[in-house]
């Protein structure tokens, strides 16, 4: 009888081990692999706070880039914020931020580096309101401002390393927006990764975050030059993705998962999970600390997640190398900048 019970216990443990192994599919907390054809919509999580939250962001809330990454992150935290998006004009954003503060919103997320100057004026006028602002590694020394920024070079390195295995000597075309912020970090990390993998990058900054026509023309120039892979960042990158699709070139995304733009040719995306730092900030806000700190998204804290496209047939050894590189980056054994 005892032996039978032991056998049952062993069987249950064995099944649990198998299930855990199957569910993991080799993915760590900093990597995921989408199921091909699955819905990319982010599921709402359990709400982490009862405080009211508003979001002010420069581009559209579903831009498959910078702004959507924040909306998705708030959704994961179970937060339905009031949203003012499309505020490329800083004065409009400033008016929205001040308006939310006057309305008594508890937490205002100002999702744009360019809003920093406005926040320096507005935040001191509303000491009871917490402002969460990024991307910036500095909260400007304001007591009720939290700052956030992504170490985008880390995922950039991983993307570059994978891209090099596909591109080889043909090289990789990079469509950059403005030579600033997380775009530069991503592209610099990507270049280091590509070089480590034995390939090279050709980088063009269009000078605009939103000019789709320029991004398209730039990607076409890269394709005409014979590159084998394309990558890019900002909401204008949708134009480059279309060129990748037209020329059957693999694409690497960043900020949000770009499978929505190119379900077959997106190999991997570095996705910003702002919720990791937002959760910390909200906990502090509920404890009475309204700001005074800058927090980073990294591969280590799970704020940067490499999302592999299940529809793209990536060689398993390349994926293993990428996962090993992630471990090395986390361990500090690979420099990404």
């Amino acid at each position: 009888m005892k032996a039978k019970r032991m056998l049952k216990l062993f069987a249950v443990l064995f099944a649990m081990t198998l299930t855990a192994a199957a569910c993991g599919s080799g993915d760590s907390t900093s990597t995921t692999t989408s199921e091909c054809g699955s819905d990319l919509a982010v599921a709402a999580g359990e709400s982490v706070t009862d405080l009211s939250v508003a979001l002010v962001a420069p581009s559209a809330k579903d831009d498959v880039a910078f702004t959507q990454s924040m909306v998705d992150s708030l959704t994961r935290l179970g937060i339905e914020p009031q949203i003012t998006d499309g505020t490329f004009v800083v004065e409009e954003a400033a008016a929205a931020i001040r308006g939310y503060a006057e309305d008594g919103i508890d937490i205002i997320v100002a999702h744009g580096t360019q809003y920093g100057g406005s926040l320096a004026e507005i935040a001191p006028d509303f000491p009871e309101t917490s402002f969460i602002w990024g991307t910036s590694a500095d909260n400007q020394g304001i007591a009720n401002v939290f700052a956030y920024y992504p170490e985008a070079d880390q995922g950039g390195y991983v993307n570059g390393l994978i891209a090099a295995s596909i591109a080889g000597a043909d090289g990789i075309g990079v469509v950059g927006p403005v030579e600033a912020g997380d775009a530069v970090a991503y592209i610099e990390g990507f270049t280091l990764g590509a070089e480590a993998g034995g390939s090279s990058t050709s980088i063009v900054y269009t000078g605009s975050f939103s000019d789709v026509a320029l991004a398209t023309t730039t990607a076409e120039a890269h394709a005409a030059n014979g590159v084998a892979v394309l990558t890019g960042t900002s909401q204008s990158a949708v134009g480059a993705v279309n060129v990748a699709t037209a020329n059957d070139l693999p694409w690497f995304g960043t900020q949000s998962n770009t499978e929505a733009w190119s379900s077959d040719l997106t190999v991997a995306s570095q996705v910003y999970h702002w919720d990791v730092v937002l959760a910390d900030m909200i906990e502090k806000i509920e404890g009475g600390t309204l700001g005074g700190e800058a927090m980073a998204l990294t591969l280590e804290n799970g704020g940067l997640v490499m999302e592999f496209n299940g529809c793209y047939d990536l060689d398993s050894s390349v994926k293993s190398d990428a996962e090993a590189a992630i471990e090395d980056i986390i361990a500090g054994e690979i420099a990404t900048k």
Partner: protein
Amino acid sequence: MSQFFTVSVLVATLATAIKFAVPYLLAALGETIGQRSGVLNLGVDGIMLLGAFGGYYTVIQTGSHLQGILVGLGIGLAIGIVYAYVTVFLHAQQGISGIGIFLFGLGFSDLLFQELVGTPKPIRPLPTLDKLPGVGGIFEPLVDIDIVGPLLFDHNLMTYMAFLLVPATTWLLMKTTFGMNVRAVGENPQAADSLGVSVAKTRLIAILIGSSLAGIAGATLSLQLAIFQHNLTNGIGFIAVALVYFGAWRPRWVMAGALLYGLVTATRIRWQSLDIIPQGASDIAAMAPAIITILALVLLASRVRGPAALTRPFSRH
């Protein structure tokens, strides 16, 4: 630098310049007609945005590029009626009215996009000649011809339409009674009126043609890029207005300006992609097309004279 001066790179750069120039050319030709009648329309960019969304959304719904272009035209026509009513019949200040049209187009196109589409969805781009359904095979050998093929035959139909509109616009303005009336009301509306020319009617038609072309330009842009998003035009309409001045209100020079703008843009992108322009200088390089256009305007401004009655409302009283 030597890698730029190869036949294949030069041809590809010129072909890109031609493609890039198309929306600018369409919008600028329309604005040329309007300005020759004495009406400045700073709302071109807003009309283009509405046309771009209309064309894009129509293709999502119907899959038809032709319908997309026609919807762009229709939207341009509708906005043109509003603009003509405000500026020609209510005698409103043209600059301010145009800015109003631009702001309306910017906001309303984005609102429609958010409500009806949301996440940008790529559509099928306008096909080049060799990919035209049914007849593409005829053009395939032409596209494969060295140098000439990529330059002349690897484009979509709207490209040919845009460049054919250059002589057509010249003919309209210089060889027809309507064109003579347009020039007359743009130079001296009182004199034209005294000779029995209806200034209001002439300006109305000129505005409608210009707005329709702006709508078509917007639809062409979104169908060429196969996408729409907030502020897709990124100021193309304003550059088109500048190109009219650059081209001294003459269609062939307007075309030259559009091609020059496209060529400078294509060249600077190609130079960056070939590492001829060093990293760190991208911001300066991005300004090159605008700087060259401004320089050309400065040089031309003292040599040419625009329509004497440009921006001046006409009233018999």
